[in-house]
């Protein structure tokens, strides 16, 4: 207790000295950065990176669950099996479809809502809450609900489609691969819009009003102000959100599990549902780990590509 009390002024003084000393740049380069980063990074290293490393080892083993049973190393066999497994390829294709269908609408609708709800207006909080409701409603509940909506014979969706004459007989939405993926994607958009909206609201909150006013006085219309004032400011956030949405889309899980179970006959498996099945139904943890790392590899590559593309666009526009 006493030690703690006396320690803090010492740190503060050392801090002052180091920033004021001639070797300021060195001070800046060294200790403070580590002090800020270390606590979080150590925690992260312990509970995420260390287990992740063990999972990596697992992916090269025929993993035996029971302690005391040796898990033999089998080299790249789990990875080789993954490449030959047709369901793996299908699951990646399904999640790619999901990303392509869900990410752009989430971004665009999220942005529209954020812009509409950024400025002060009556009932702003009310609307902000309403649009965020899907994000906080449990996956179990919304998945069940979308299962109803897309039911073949009694579903609301088919009822609408047949009554306006778009289709002549009921569509078996959840019984076929792409229609089922589309149904799950619609749920993804619906549930994700509020999430993008919230981050974009936070980003818009930083747009300078002075700049907006100056642009307005110069006669710039709403659209031009958005293009030249707002957009440059939130571009970084948009890139961040896109990367996170793509990452999230490739990791889609509960909606598939609850709406189609990956079926019929693995037609709608996505990487995570298939990994879950391998690990927790078949107890094939080595294979599940290999699939996890394959997925991680794709996520990293795709994120890097997006990051690179964003940098390129930024440089062009400058």
């Amino acid at each position, binding site marked *: 207790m006493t030690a703690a009390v006396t320690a803090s002024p010492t740190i503060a003084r050392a801090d*002052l000295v180091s*920033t004021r000393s001639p070797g300021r740049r060195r001070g800046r*380069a060294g200790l403070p*950065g*580590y*002090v*800020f*980063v270390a*606590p*979080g*990074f150590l*925690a*992260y290293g*312990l*509970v*995420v990176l*260390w*287990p992740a490393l*063990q*999972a990596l080892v*697992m992916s090269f083993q025929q993993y035996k669950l029971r302690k005391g049973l040796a898990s033999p190393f089998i080299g790249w066999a789990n990875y080789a099996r993954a490449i030959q497994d047709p369901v793996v390829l299908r699951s990646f294709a399904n999640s790619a479809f999901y990303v392509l269908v869900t990410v752009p609408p989430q971004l665009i*609708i999220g942005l529209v809502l954020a812009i*509409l709800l*950024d*400025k*002060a*207006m009556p009932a702003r909080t009310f*609307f*902000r*809450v*309403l649009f965020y*409701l*899907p994000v*906080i*409603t*449990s996956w*179990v*509940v*919304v998945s*069940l*609900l979308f299962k*109803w909506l897309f039911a073949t014979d009694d579903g*609301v969706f088919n*009822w609408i489609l047949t009554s306006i004459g778009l289709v002549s007989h009921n569509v078996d939405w959840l019984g076929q691969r792409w229609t089922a993926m589309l149904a799950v994607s619609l749920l993804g958009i*619906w549930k994700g*819009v509020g999430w993008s909206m*919230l981050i974009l*609201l*936070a980003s*818009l*909150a930083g747009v300078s*009003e002075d700049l907006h006013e100056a642009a307005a006085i110069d006669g710039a219309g709403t659209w031009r102000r958005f293009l030249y004032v707002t957009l440059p400011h939130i571009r*970084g*956030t948009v890139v*961040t959100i896109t990367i996170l949405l793509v990452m999230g889309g490739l*990791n889609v899980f509960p909606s598939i599990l609850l709406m189609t179970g990956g079926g019929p006959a693995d037609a709608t498996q996505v990487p995570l549902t298939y*990994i879950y099945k391998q690990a927790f139904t078949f107890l094939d*943890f080595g294979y599940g*780990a290999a699939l*996890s790392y394959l997925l991680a590899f794709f996520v990293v590559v795709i994120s890097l590509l997006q990051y690179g593309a964003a940098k390129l666009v930024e440089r062009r526009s400058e």
Partner: protein
Amino acid sequence: MIVQRRRTRSLGLASRYLILALGAVVLVTPFAFMVSVSLKGRTMLLEVPPRLFFKNPTLDNYVTAWTSNQFGQYFVNSLGVAVATTVLTLLLSSMMAYGFARFRFRGRGAMFTVLILGMSIPGMLLIVPQFLLAKDLQLLNSLPGLLPFYVGGSLAFNTFLLRAFFERIPRELDEAMEIDGAGPWRRYWNLALPLARPALATTAIFTFLGSWDEFAWALTVINDVEKRTLPIGIALFTAEHGTQWGLVFAASVIAVTPVILVYILFQRQIISGLTNGAIKS
């Protein structure tokens, strides 16, 4: 001309409300159905298509959900864990984000890359190694034992998000404070954090929700019935055959309320002009 502008403005406002109202209907309907089913009394099979309005709504499910199964205790447990997780995560991730955004040090790039790489690995397969780790650290079957894993699990995402916001704070402000003699901690605490209030509020909302909703890990490590969290309490109402959906939905509605309150509380921080004002002063 002024009149014309005013007219277009009110027209703009009207169309804004129209779009918002339309969006609200689409987004809220499923939530309304959840509430509707929860008021229906005992239902094992869900009515197809579901009806939004019906005769004789009842609060029975709410009473049963709350009184059976120590639900109140689970609520308190979840609240404690979620609040602690949010506070710790916000502190650690904002420190990390500030460190990455404002300082140069050896291994900075590598550490940030590792952070992002870790985010790409699906957490599902980590559950067994994490379980063994929790066992070694004697964190099994304990509510505070959930914290390291909840905080650790949400650090990367929040750091990633916050760093982007910190980097947009003009460096001149830092330098001005530095000339006034402010050390790194004061610059972080008195300058960066207040300016990043909208971003911090966003991460607080996400972190609270993430911890509040977490199911798989809590289910795996908590054994004592009285230490369980709310999502487990809700899942306990599901059965192999004949789940009482009215109960599940009532429990879900109860579970959503604190999240809405937290959201309302924090979204006040996400307001245009806040940042500008702070920078001016």
